């Protein structure tokens, strides 16, 4: 595939904003995205065939997303956009490996932006692998883009105001919610949260509107509550919930069973930083920001020159931050590639920084909300699976610690934890926390599993067909 000056991985808000800024400055931009349609998880567009009748019902994020996507559409001829394209590796010689149209190919770059987003934090507790357990993001995707409800009798649990957004969407789609559990407390986590995420009174209004619709539907809201375990034959039939203390540890004698057929868990997000890790960028661990996140300069550049990172994949902070960071990265890359002078770039970055600072005031609140407390990682029992792909249990972790294992990569070798097709996404975030708590060590001491290509599963036939796509179409680019 023809090389590009600036390659952006991820078509969410950050990636879109960066692509537009860089293209405006005259940079050759290629935007690579796994999905069929742009927007990422945040601005997820409907599957083709759905027509939006009432955009207001979908919330402000949807409307704002439409605006950004519209802007992007106006610049489409300046940006090479590759949809349904998986990035499976990044290599020393400034290339990334793509899987697209059934064949692997290589894309060279001078500058690269990782705008890879985040995913729902998985939390292991007894029964969490039963059908009927959804992540909030997974449930949202179902409801929002496929108009399918996760179940008939739904229980929501987690922390922060995003739960309200999901609840609102479920109710709008005609679903029944048994209750909404907030692990922290409402005033702190929801009202301040709305401000924190969006930093904007419109959104507080929006949040209050959600709250009203939830109240109207008669859905109980329980603060300082979590789901401790779930039971069922073949599918969830009941969830055991309990009141928790400040560390999210269940209080004695508060546990009770609730009959539900599905639960949606929203305990914050984990950054998808495997691309920057594979690229050899320096990372540090911050649970508040979503785990291992790349170290960055003020221009969003990582420790590897020419590789930038923005948005939730570089520290979970929501879409407003992603957009501003994306703009800064796009402008900085344009500057680095010689399309903008230093003064022009600084001038253009200034308003973005100003807006970022404004959001930053609330950022601290959001960080505080999304920080999962220790109690959450103490729910697993000996036979609870902590790595789903390889069916590794908590007992195996305890045994490994008993023989003197101190690091995650060593635990991996003895147990196969993290060696399955999810490539560690589902287990690493919680195993880090479990290990460091049990060992009294820092996350850096425990370490993590370094990704190796392919960073996401790719069919061998696609790899074997490397180079054939270029032969099929004379021009590697295509616009959808």
């Amino acid at each position, binding site marked *: 595939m023809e090389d590009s000056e600036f390659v952006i991985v991820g078509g969410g808000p950050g990636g879109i904003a960066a692509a537009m800024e860089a293209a405006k400055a005259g940079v050759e931009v290629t935007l690579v995205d796994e999905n069929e349609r742009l927007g990422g998880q945040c601005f997820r567009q409907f599957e083709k065939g759905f027509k939006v009748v009432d955009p207001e019902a979908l919330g402000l994020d949807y409307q704002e997303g439409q605006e950004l996507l519209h802007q992007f559409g106006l610049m489409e001829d300046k940006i090479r956009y590759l949809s349904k394209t998986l990035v499976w*590796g990044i*290599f*020393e010689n400034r*290339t990334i*490996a793509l899987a697209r149209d059934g064949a*692997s190919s*290589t894309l060279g770059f001078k500058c690269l932006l990782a705008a890879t987003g985040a995913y729902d934090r998985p939390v292991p507790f007894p029964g969490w692998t039963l059908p009927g357990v959804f992540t909030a993001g997974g449930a949202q995707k179902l409801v929002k883009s496929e108009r399918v409800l996760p179940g008939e009798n739904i229980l929501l649990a987690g922390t922060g105001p995003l739960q309200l957004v999901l609840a609102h969407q479920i109710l709008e789609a005609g679903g029944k919610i048994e209750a909404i559990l907030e692990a922290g407390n409402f005033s702190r986590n929801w009202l301040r949260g709305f401000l924190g995420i969006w930093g904007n009174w419109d959104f507080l209004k929006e949040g209050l509107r959600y709250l009203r619709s939830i109240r109207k539907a008669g859905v109980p809201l329980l603060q300082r509550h979590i789901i401790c375990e779930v039971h069922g034959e073949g599918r969830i039939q009941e969830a055991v919930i309990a009141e928790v203390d400040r560390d999210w540890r269940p209080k004695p004698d508060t546990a009770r069973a609730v009959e539900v057929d599905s639960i949606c868990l929203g305990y914050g997000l984990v950054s998808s930083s495997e691309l920057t890790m594979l690229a050899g960028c320096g990372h540090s661990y911050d649970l508040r920001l979503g785990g291992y996140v790349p170290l960055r300069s003020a221009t969003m550049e990582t420790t590897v020159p020419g590789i930038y990172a923005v948005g939730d994949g570089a520290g979970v902070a929501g879409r407003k931050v992603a957009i501003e960071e994306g703009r800064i990265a796009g402008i900085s890359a344009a500057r680095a590639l010689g399309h903008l002078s230093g003064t022009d770039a600084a001038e253009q970055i200034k308003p973005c920084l100003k807006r970022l600072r404004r959001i930053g005031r609330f950022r601290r609140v959001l960080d505080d909300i999304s920080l999962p407390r220790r109690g959450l990682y103490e729910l697993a029992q000996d036979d609870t699976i902590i790595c789903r792909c*390889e069916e590794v249990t908590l007992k195996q972790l305890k045994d490994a610690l008993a*023989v*003197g*294992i*101190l*690091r995650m*990569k*060593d635990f991996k*070798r*003895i147990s*196969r934890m993290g*060696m*399955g*097709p999810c*490539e560690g996404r589902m287990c690493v975030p919680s195993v880090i926390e479990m290990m460091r708590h049990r060992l009294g060590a820092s996350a850096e001491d425990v370490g993590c599993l370094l990704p*190796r*290509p*392919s960073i996401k*599963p*790719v*069919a*061998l*036939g696609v*790899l*074997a067909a*490397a180079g054939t796509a270029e032969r099929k179409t004379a021009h590697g680019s295509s616009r959808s």
Partner: protein
Amino acid sequence: MGSSVAYFLAKAGKDVVLVERGWFAGEASGANAAFVWTITRKSGIDIRLAMHSLGIHKQLEAELEMGFEYVRGGGLLIIENETQIPLVEAHLRKRAEDGHPLDLIDAEQVLELEPHLSKERVLGAVYSPVDGKTNPIFLVIALNLQARKLGARLLHHTEVVGIEAAGGAVKGVVTDKGTIKTNIVVNAAGSWASFIGEMVAVNVPVSPFQMAMLVTEQLPPTVAHAVMGASYMVEEDAGKKEGLGCGLIMSQQTAGNLLIGASWRKAGYDKRTIQEEIELIARVNVRAMPMLKTVRLIRSYANFFPQTEDDLPILGKVDGIEGFIMACGHGGHGICLGPGSGKLIQELICDGRTSLPIDELNLSRFNQARHA
């Protein structure tokens, strides 16, 4: 290698310390084809050592408390094209003369044993019922845990920074966490053996040779044998060549993942895999087994095999430095030869002689052991 030596020494009642820069199976022993394989071993000491080691694997299976998924499921060296035939025939002849014959089977028999292989890619195969596969990581961990139970001290995440010697004999090992007094040091540092050698001014001609492999998602039983393409016979000096090469390697782990490979290139000590070699390995394997087309890759890995010029390990004492013993240079066969070599080194240390003569494997064969 170090784990085997430590285990057998601890079992013999010796006071053993295993110094390991990383953790169990951190380097080549944790990233290989998982073969316990003798088919391509040459006549002479090469096959004698391999056969001896096969027996030790069996013995360990009974002795070690932790299982390591050793399966003697048989090995197949696939003849993929006509040019390979004379080489394979010559190999079989020499092996038979040496008293270690191998069976040649035709394409039909091969496809009966491995029905997913492509008819177009198989002319026949060399079959060995005693070969098989293991879980090399578990094997190393099992050896370590048992060694520790028997009193060995395991110093993980500890790096050797020097060796103390005086009067032509070793006196101790200096690590980043302190010094250990000893009069016997075994150099089992694999691809890093030359650095340990330098600490006592001994030239150890072992160099890293990178091999990369792919791991697929878990599958139901698909490949029963340890499978290798005979291109390895043609390219037996592959590691010394420039550029990228690849030969067919397949083994299925007990968990269901296929390990497929393998490519080789000179990459110094760089463990990262590159796009070209990943795609090449996929191409070679999909060609040999078309059903792999839809099977997903989940990970690739590379490691360095400690290569010697004659493709044989270096085992035994070092002239001129008392107490310095070599157990390195096993190339791509460390897992197969490790347990056997470990046992022999233990015999050398405890009894002064070995049940299998290993004089041919002494460092002195390179005739340049000491720096001027």
